[in-house]
């Protein structure tokens, strides 16, 4: 083999390492817990200013008693058609209210939060948006925070904010369509149904699947005993876009 070589070149892209563990164990039964759901998947109220799809670290307040038909998605990182059909595919608020009614969980936070994590500014999410969402959830007495992301950088932003919530003393889980990113970015707990990005919380309008993903995730939060655990969930949905 004869190849011209040039000494002294340096690799130009850093390959990340997983950050330090962050961990808050769950200390009470699920039926007594106050649960919040946050999403990096671009969900907001139709009356609110849409996210800037090229990167946006602001967040939107979503009251937990809102009619889900008043919610929409603004996110350019994946095919939106599933969320357009049923917002519960990313932000399963209707299912969570059913779980409260059923007595599976104690209550919901009055305020939940949406943001658009695609192309997210890491420092802003880590140092501003994440701590602020965590503080607001903690002030509401939240015990458990569940989070979905959409695209790849969304999963990164979702994980950063989730880590802030865990650090603030809440037990958190990322429901991930892309578990390698959640793991690499240091999510405290991960559940991973076999779903495409855009339908992280289950197939649109498939109530049993969405409920099962939530229940399995909540049970996993009770069972997980150390940082970084990931449970693959046995629910599979493929959409033909």
């Amino acid at each position, binding site marked *: 083999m004869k190849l011209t070589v040039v000494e002294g070149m340096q690799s130009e892209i850093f*390959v990340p390492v997983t950050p330090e563990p962050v961990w808050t164990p769950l200390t009470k039964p699920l039926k007594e817990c106050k649960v919040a759901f946050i999403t990096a998947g671009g969900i907001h109220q139709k009356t609110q200013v849409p996210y800037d799809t090229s990167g946006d670290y602001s967040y939107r307040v979503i009251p937990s008693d809102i009619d889900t038909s008043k919610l929409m998605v603004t996110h350019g990182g994946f095919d939106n058609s599933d969320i357009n059909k049923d917002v519960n595919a990313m932000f399963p608020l209707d299912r969570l209210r059913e779980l409260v009614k059923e007595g599976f969980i104690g209550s919901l936070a009055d305020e939940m939060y949406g943001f658009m994590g695609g192309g997210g500014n890491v420092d802003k999410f880590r140092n501003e948006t994440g701590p602020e969402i965590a503080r607001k959830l903690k002030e509401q007495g939240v015990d458990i925070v569940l989070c979905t992301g959409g695209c790849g950088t969304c999963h990164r932003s979702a994980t950063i904010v989730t880590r802030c919530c865990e650090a603030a003393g809440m037990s958190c889980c990322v429901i991930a369509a892309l578990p390698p990113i959640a793991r690499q970015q240091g999510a405290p707990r991960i559940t991973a149904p076999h779903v495409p990005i855009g339908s992280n919380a289950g197939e649109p309008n498939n109530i049993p699947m969405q409920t099962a993903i939530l229940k399995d995730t909540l049970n996993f939060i009770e069972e997980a005993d150390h940082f970084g655990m990931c449970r693959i969930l046995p629910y599979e949905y493929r959409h033909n876009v």
Partner: protein
Amino acid sequence: MSLTKDVLEKHLKDPAVFCCRRQKGLVISGADLEDPDLFEDMADAGLLALSKEGLTIEQVLGRKLETDTEALTPITAAMLDGINAESPEAKPESGSGTKSASGPEIKPEVKSGAAAGTGSGPASCRMIHVAIERLEGLKLDIPVGMETAIPQELTERTEKVLRTLKKKIFQVKDVIIADETSFQNGILKIDGKILKKAIKADPLVKDIKMDIIKPQQRHIYTDTIMDVCPIAAKAEGKLGEGVTNVLEGAVFMLTGVDEDGTQIHEFGSSEGFLDEKMFFGHPGCADPDDIIIRVETVIQSKTGMERRGPFAAHKCEDAVIQAVRDVLKKTAEKPKREELCRDIRKYGRPRVVLVKEIMGQGAMHDNILCPAEPCGVPGGQKNVDLGNVPLMLSPNEVRDGGIHALTCIGPATKEMTRHYFREPLIEALAEDDELDLMGVIFIGSPQVNDEKSFVSERLGAWIEALDAEGAIVTTEGFGNNHIDFISHIGQIGSRGIPVVGVSFCAYQGQLVVGNEYADAMIETNKDINGFENEVAGCSEICPNDAARAVQMLKNKMMGVEIKPAARKWSQSIIDRNNEILGLPREKIMDRI
């Protein structure tokens, strides 16, 4: 954590810091020390403050600790019974073939290459590379069969031309919207009535307009730039061979909104003033002197982020371009010049593959492969429909417009149709006399994680079956597709095949996952702050990037060290690599 022997050897000149609390009387070994690679993280987290008085690892190994010491404390002379002398030579490198296992080990490794770490000398000699663990630092490179002369080339450097494509280039002097479509005396006339026919190509397109933007008229508002498409038509033969007539000096540009006025290409949209929203001269973009034929589409409300909507816009634009192609095929004009593109098997030179990861997730994350006409739509297959599995195209097929790009994924980092028509990496590899470019593998990035693994593993099997000796993997965009990108690098690297990765990462797109094989990486960012800056084509692969990637691959194939990446993106490293290779300084976009 403590240091393993091979990590220790790399860091003899780095600061010595206890990883855990240690008590007086301890004789210091690698097991007591923290990994210097983690110091920056620890300093960022406030866990560690390095001291000027701190000693290096080689100064403390084997020395006795005189006082109890807490974890993450830099070791200073005052704590020890004495200090080892520093070795004079530069930081030792761990050569190939060394292992961290304890005990003696002799590992002969026969390579059909020059000695690792050297690029000169009698190349093509077969060498036995020996590293003996117990004798630290000793490396021997012994020619195989010392008593016999080894031919300079193991295999004769012969070539076989597989196919030839002739591109006949015709200069466009002006473009006019007229009552007929024709190309005469360098004047391209396009029949305005064609739009009425073109809109029928897909019912989702509700309105279509066309205008001409001259080079001096660039400060004009434009909807988001969906694509830049060359004008090329098959005059003889099929894609990749025969004759293709190409217009130079004019390109099509597709823009689109939906009926509500929402821009079609989202994840950053490039709508605005054209002169600020395109990086003129980059491979996928219009050149500064090009006349732009703009096709503006309006598609059905709310279909912009669904797969069918943007595709409809591309279909209708292509119906317009096809009318021009039909004229161009039969033109009697004299070509300005002819370019010959050849697919050549270069025997006796290392076989390399270019792997291009393309989007494969539906709306604006899709591509059309191998259309009937160069850069066309009809006759092609969409990679999403094909399950995103790896497909091989010959370099000529790609250079003849084998890809029509439907992607959005951020204006600055997407590869538009024109990019593939003049892909700098294909040009660099195909024209490199030292390498045998076997082909270009296109692999889609699926939406589902399991499918990402599936297609990536299929890629690994391909590379193995091809017996490739080197590979470059590229991806457009950033984010979830980096899972695939890193996995592809792992599939190739874990088979012992040198691999180089090429992507936009910089600040905004910094990698979300990583593995040990991603150690030779080329950054394509051209934005001053490292962001997807919504300027079409800004951070796509450019000739400098391609040159660096090819050289880095050659270095890796020859065992020449590639220094590890810095912990944070820095343009200065890219500038330095360009400088080392004698490349011009890259133009960086510094507009907000």
